[in-house]
Structure formats: structure tokens, C-alpha cells
């Protein structure tokens, strides 16, 4: 038999798992650098878990989670985003609403991404590995592989576009089947 704490954690994971891809995409869309975006996402996860006891089961977890994420993004924009170029509150609200609505789709996208990554050519896959590796720096990576940083940015942009298109096709196919 599971302990109450363990049950609570499992409940949390089940609910959180369902909307994590959309939450992450939403946070990423409003925080312009990956490292900051990961930090904000981590803070969101902490708050959700810490306050999970206060969460009313009748309430939609997704709505609650997006509320927390929005609040965290706005806090970040206020505290650390001053010297950066960030979107206004209205755009933040708009993106939050659409991300929340499309949560299911982002889950499908996460699944499709695995297949799409496998479809990439080996050098491209390795490039993604390296570029997204912990503590990776684009300028260093570019010089390691004999490219300019700008050329590497463009290449990664093309790869991301390929992955977006591929995942969109996969979601459509799944929806049709």
C-alpha cells in the first residue's frame, strides 16, 4: 500500500505530466533564452508541487498550472527581464490562453518529436545533441566544428523548422488515423 505522501506525489506527477509539454512551450515562448526559460520552468514545478496541497481537486489542474506559470513568467519579466526585450502582458495572456488550449497537442508533439529526431540525418542529430547539451555554448561549438556562430544559428534554425514541420505532419496523421 502506498503511503499518503507517495500517493500525493503520484497524483501530482500524473496531472503534471499531462500538461508539462504545453507549460514548457508556453514558458519558453515568453522567456527569450533557454537557460532562463529552464529556470522559470523549474520554479513553476517547485511552486506547483509545494502548493499541491492547497490545490482543490475540483479545479482544473491545467488552468491552475498555467496560472502559476503565467505568474512566474511575469515575475521573471519584472525581475530579470528588464534588460531584455520581452513581450507585453496582453501578448503573454494570449500565448498562455492558446498554450493551455493546445495542451493535448503539445503532448502529441512531444511524442512525435522522438520519431522526427530519428528521421534526422546523423550529422544533424549529433549537432542537436551537442547544441542542446548541458553547458553547451554556440560560439565554442561553432569553432569546434569549423563554422561561424551565425552559420550554426542558421543551421539549428533549419533543423528546428524541420522538426516543427515533421511533428505537425505526425500529429495530423495521428489525428486522421
Amino acid at each position, binding site marked *: 500500500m502506498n503511503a499518503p505522501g507517495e500517493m500525493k506525489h503520484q497524483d501530482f506527477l500524473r496531472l503534471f505530466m499531462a500538461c508539462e*509539454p504545453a507549460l514548457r512551450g508556453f514558458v519558453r*515562448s515568453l522567456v527569450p533564452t533557454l537557460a532562463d526559460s529552464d529556470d522559470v520552468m523549474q520554479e513553476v514545478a517547485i511552486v506547483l508541487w509545494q502548493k499541491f496541497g492547497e490545490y482543490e481537486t475540483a479545479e482544473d489542474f491545467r488552468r491552475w498550472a498555467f496560472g502559476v506559470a503565467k505568474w512566474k513568467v511575469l515575475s521573471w519579466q519584472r525581475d530579470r527581464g528588464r534588460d531584455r526585450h520581452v513581450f507585453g502582458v496582453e501578448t503573454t495572456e494570449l500565448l498562455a490562453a492558446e498554450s493551455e488550449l493546445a495542451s493535448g497537442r503539445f503532448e502529441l*508533439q512531444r511524442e512525435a518529436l522522438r520519431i522526427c529526431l530519428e528521421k534526422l540525418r546523423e550529422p544533424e*542529430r*549529433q549537432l542537436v545533441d551537442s547544441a542542446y547539451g548541458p553547458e553547451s555554448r554556440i560560439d565554442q561549438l561553432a569553432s569546434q566544428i569549423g563554422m561561424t556562430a551565425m552559420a550554426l544559428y542558421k543551421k539549428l534554425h533549419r533543423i528546428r*523548422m524541420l522538426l516543427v514541420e515533421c*511533428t505537425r505532419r505526425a500529429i495530423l496523421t495521428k489525428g486522421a488515423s
Partner: protein
Amino acid sequence: MKNDPRLDWISEYVQGRADAEVTARLEQALREDPEFRALFLDYLSVDGALSAHAAYRPLPEADSSLGRAAHRQPSRPLPTPVWKGLAWAASIAVAGVIAWSAARERSPFARVHGSAGTDLNAGMPVRSERYCFEKGSVEFVTSKGARVVVEAPAEVRFESAECLRVFRGKVAADVPEGARGFTVLTPAGGAVDLGTRFGVDVPESGSPEVHVFEGEVIAQAKSATQKRSLRTGEATVFKSGVSESREIRSASFIQHDEVPELAAGLAAGQRAKSEAKLRSLRADPALVAALDFEEGEAFAGVYRMAQGRWPGSKAPEFVNQGDHLKVSAGEGREFTQLTLAAWVRIDRLGEPFQSLYHTDGWGPSSPGQVHWMITKATTMRLALYGNTQAPSSIDSVSPVLPERGRWVHLATVYDSSVGRMRFYLNGRFDNETRSAVSWPAKLGQAQIGNWNRHDRKLSGRVDELILLGRAMSDAEVWELFEAGNPYR
């Protein structure tokens, strides 16, 4: 869409390079065009997913790039099928776990609290790097407060603030209430602490062991279905996929209160003093043997080589029934006076005797053969065949083994011309005994850690064994201890 200039804005935004003008244009486009907004969200979601996944993919189990020197090895991308199979499947299945774990990923799992002879500095944050130590010992304190001491040679990696993976080496954990559940994983099984203190030994060759000094630990061999509860004083060895009971070896593990004293000893230059003392002893014409086990002669026997008192130094370790090391010194000679001294780190056992030095030729045909040992009462005894002494009067008085594992210096000075034996613990005189008949000492073929005729198993390490064919004075024994003391 491919030639849409707005895609460049997304690209710049994702890189964190968008200036005020690009950001404003992008924002306007997002507000005006739902299709573009959807694309933007898809793009950023892919970017976020790649980053999240990259941060949590596991390291390869075997990494041949590990060097031999102590170093930190940051997590690195895997060479190829990182996106395939388990890693990705796991990231999907436990997306919640990953994201939740992410909350803690940026915070260190532990910090270096202290170190003796490694290049890790106190306060250094520790995450999921793999650490390889060839010398010294280091204490980590996890973010939950568990104190973990790792002794070289060792390779370890924190998987989280609650879990340490040990590839090889000795680890002692002291787990307070707030860190209950701290887990140590070995290649053959794991141990979950239910409070409060335990040790895990993963030898270079041989089976991993779990020892419970105090409290309770749940141990489970990798392929076993049953978990096993171990309580104070109990130990298990993970052998062939199952866990078997074994005798506890608590002295094998350096515990957290010992690390600062070892570090202070090093800082005070004790190692150099010890080496200088050994050099001066080697110039003593009365020296029979000075065994520091560092280099040169390889000793026959069955034992493990562990770290001695100094970072990276060597000391034979006796672990299993029958373990022993053979030495040969002073063959065919008689010694009217003899000093025996050793640095040892030994368990308190219920065994009748633990052998420090036992000559093979013990018997009526060779009176004066020497047996130096630790008794069941943890006192020191020197027996010479044929000497007439009542058993109750031949031992040291003080227990010579501490409750918790520590290096201790033991010495016995024998003078057959006056029938006298003097015992010393950590340089201090402990007891003197007399005998009516006392033979000159005879040495020769001998064993450390056992005796060939009867099992006199020693459980622990012997770092430095001195056999000197004269009687050291009290002051000399004190100097020997002082110079070789690893603690300050």
C-alpha cells in the same frame, strides 16, 4: 512559409538576440496572425523539449574516458543514439518526474564539506558529475543534510540529492531524519537508509557490501526480488545476484568526523615527518623489517590493497576468512630484545584473536617464536613460545581498538634478558608484564592477518609494521607515534 522573413525573427528571438525592433515586430505579428502564433508556439515548444530532454538524459554507465587522477567529469552529450529507446521513452513516461526533478537540478545535490588529499575544495557544489579519486578522502553533505564520506580509490556520482551511485570505493553515510531514504547504488545492488549510519564498499574486484553501523537499511541485490532489512551491526554482500550475510566491518570506513583531522594532519606536514622517521629507522642497524607496503616487494597472500594513512598510500586490507599476508624477516636469528610496532585500523570483533604478526614456526622445537595479536577483549598480547606467564598477566590493559574505525598505533617492547614486556597505545605506555622464563625472540616466516595453523583472522588494515631488534625507550615509541600520526 519557408521564405517568410518572420521566421528570422523567431530564430533571433530563440537565440536571445532579438533587439527591441525585432521583438516589437514579432509581438505584433503574433497578435495579428493566429497561424503564425501557432507556428511560434510549436517552434518554441520543440526548442524547450530539446533542452529539457538534453538536461536529463543519463550518462553512459561505462565511460572509458575516465582518467586515473582525481577529477570532475561534467555530464556530456552521448555520442549517438541518445534520442532513441530508453532515454527518450523515459523522458516521455516520466515527463512529470523530469520536470519536478528539474526544480532541483539547478540546485546542487550536495556540497563538498571537507577533503583530505583530494583537489576538491570545501563549499564546491556537486551535481551529477562523475568523480574519480585515486587518493584521499572527501566528505559531501547533501542538500537534505546526509553526510557522505568517500575514500579513494573511488568513483562516484550523485544521481540526486537522495541518491549516490558508487562504481568503486568505500562510502560511509550518516543520514539524519530529514534525509531518510538516502540511497546508495552499487553495480550489484542498492541500499536505502532508514536512518542512521551505514557503509558501502565496492571493491575493484569482489562483491559489493553493505554494513549498518547504526539504525536500519534496506538492501536489495540487483536481480533479487526480495528486499532485506539490515539492522545495527549487520552486513550483507551482494553475491551472484543475491545478498548474503557477512560479518560487519565498520572500521573499514572513514567517517565524517575523521576527515577534518586527516586534513589537518596533512596540512601540518605529518606525511613528510612520517617518511623521514621511516628513513631514519631504515638506517638503524638493529632494524629487522620496516614494511610500509608502498613499493618494491610484492607480498604473497590473500588480501586487498586499500589506502593507507596517507592519500594514495597503500595498506593491505583483510576482509574475508582466511585472508593473510606472508612476510619473511629475521630468519635464523635470535633477538634478546625486540620492538614490534604497527599502524592499524581494525574492527572490534568477537573473534578470539586477530593476528598482527604470527611466525609460522610456533612449537616446542623452536621456543621464542613470536605471536603478536589482539584479543577478544581488544587488548594487545605478545606471546612467545615457551615463556612462562599466566594468561591474565600477558596483555595490555586498555582496549586498543576504538569504538569507531580509526588509525591507531600499537607497539610492544620485549626484553628477554629481564623478562619484561611493555605495551604502548598511540605512543603512550599502557602496561608492563614480567615472566619467569623468557626466551629470546625468534622470527622468520610469518603471517600478518592470520596464522596458518588456526584461523586468527584480522578484520581491517595494517599500514606500517616495524620489527626492530632492540628495545625502544618510551620516548622513542612516542616519537614513532608522533611522527607517523595522520591526525591533528
